[in-house]
């Protein structure tokens, strides 16, 4: 059981700094709607955190949390754009574009990108060659010039990380 930050502290942070944070995010996103959404997300994130002493520099602290959310938001947008472009490029896929189909693809790619970001370089290469390019493990060993048992270790690492990410989500 986690102890949660008393909501009163967050309320105080909110009344003192929410407008500032919205303006701060507005300058970065150049979009009032996104800035407002991300401000909400930032404070929601704080409510979920285990209790901690109030930060001595609240704005720096809020900006750190908001920046992380902004990076996630930018990555999701990047993925959405890539998925839309891919639909446009793929012959016959036009009819297949439905909001559900798009969201599903974005979710999957987001999970893959987060997994790849968490993996060391060679393991990332091994994962991409195996799962995306469809090479067999012994073909990957030959391609990367490493032993089959190293490839197996990389693939196992990807499985383990991927499970951890799915748990955290």
């Amino acid at each position: 059981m986690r102890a949660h930050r008393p909501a009163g502290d967050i309320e105080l942070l909110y009344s003192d700094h929410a407008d500032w944070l919205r303006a701060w995010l507005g300058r970065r996103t150049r979009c009032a709607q996104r800035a407002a959404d991300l401000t909400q997300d930032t404070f929601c994130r704080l409510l979920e955190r285990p209790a901690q002493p109030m930060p001595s520099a609240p704005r720096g602290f809020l900006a750190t949390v908001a920046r992380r959310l902004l990076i996630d938001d930018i990555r999701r947008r990047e993925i959405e754009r890539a998925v839309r472009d891919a639909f446009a490029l793929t012959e016959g896929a036009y009819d297949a574009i439905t909001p559900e189909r798009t969201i599903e693809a974005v979710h999957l790619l987001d999970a893959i990108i987060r997994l790849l970001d968490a993996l060391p370089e060679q393991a990332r290469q091994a994962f991409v060659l195996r799962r995306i390019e469809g090479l067999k493990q012994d073909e990957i060993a030959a391609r990367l010039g490493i032993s089959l048992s190293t490839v197996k270790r990389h693939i196992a690492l990807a499985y383990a990380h991927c499970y951890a990410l799915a748990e955290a989500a």
Partner: protein
Amino acid sequence: MADTYNKQAVIDQAARWAAMIDAGDMTEGERAECETWCAADPGHREVLERMLRFHDRVDQGGAVEKTALRKLLSQRANARRVGGATLLALCLAVAGWLLLRGQPADAPAIAYHTGRGEQRIVELDDGSRLTIDTDGSVDVTLTADRRRVHLHKGQVFAEVSKNPSRPFIVTTKNGSATALGTAFAVRQTGSASVVTVTQSRVRVCPGDAPQTDTRCLALSTGQRARMTSAAVTRLPDIDPELAMLWTKGWLEADDLEVSAVLLELGRYSAIPIRFEAGRLAGRRVTGSYPLTDIDRALEGLARTADLDVRKADSEIVITPR
């Protein structure tokens, strides 16, 4: 903690089985061992099955997912320097060839200046965008085969529209920074220039050195270098997002010496800011300060760092309280 430890051990073991199943070369003995492990605890089987499920989903991803993912990976690889070596070599070959073709026909240079405390965004005809920082001066020359920005003083942030056949070159008296489509900042200080790359890659060369000179350095996202007419030296990396905050009108101090913050604010102040660095030594601050409102920035800084701000006609004097 024993609980967490066991869980990680189960995940690691399941991952080893999953990798063996994925290889498709398990012996009868190994298969039996895996089955025994799964049967030992219902949790074991579930973890292994969930792992295999995710990868099945990836494998079954349609053409759309794979196309999108390849594109995303190549974008990220460029930023990360993975497998970008060939691309870079190609870009450099093109840029080098263009530079060797000799001077293009003269085109008129357009000069842009900013006053103290002023930042100016200039949209160029090629779709690129320059942000000129306080007290700056640049000349822009666009010709059919290259785009050149000469920085006389101050700092400029270039968001370069992609055009491989028209390299974008920022020059200073200390050297040149060449890109084909990227974002980077160049700052002129007294005796040197500092190049900071916030996106993709930039080739930095000292003095008049051509692109092929061995003293040139290739910088990628988050990397910085100091350039003099004789050499280019790497500086510590920086978070690209932080590096470009000034273009949004903010100075972000993350545990910085007060005197460093004052020095930076001084560049934006219409009247000089005076302080004795020795008397402020050891005082550090974390915070965001508006570059567009120096009075407010100093007010905030004074509050956190316990300073006195005295405004006279021709200067602002800062002392420890």
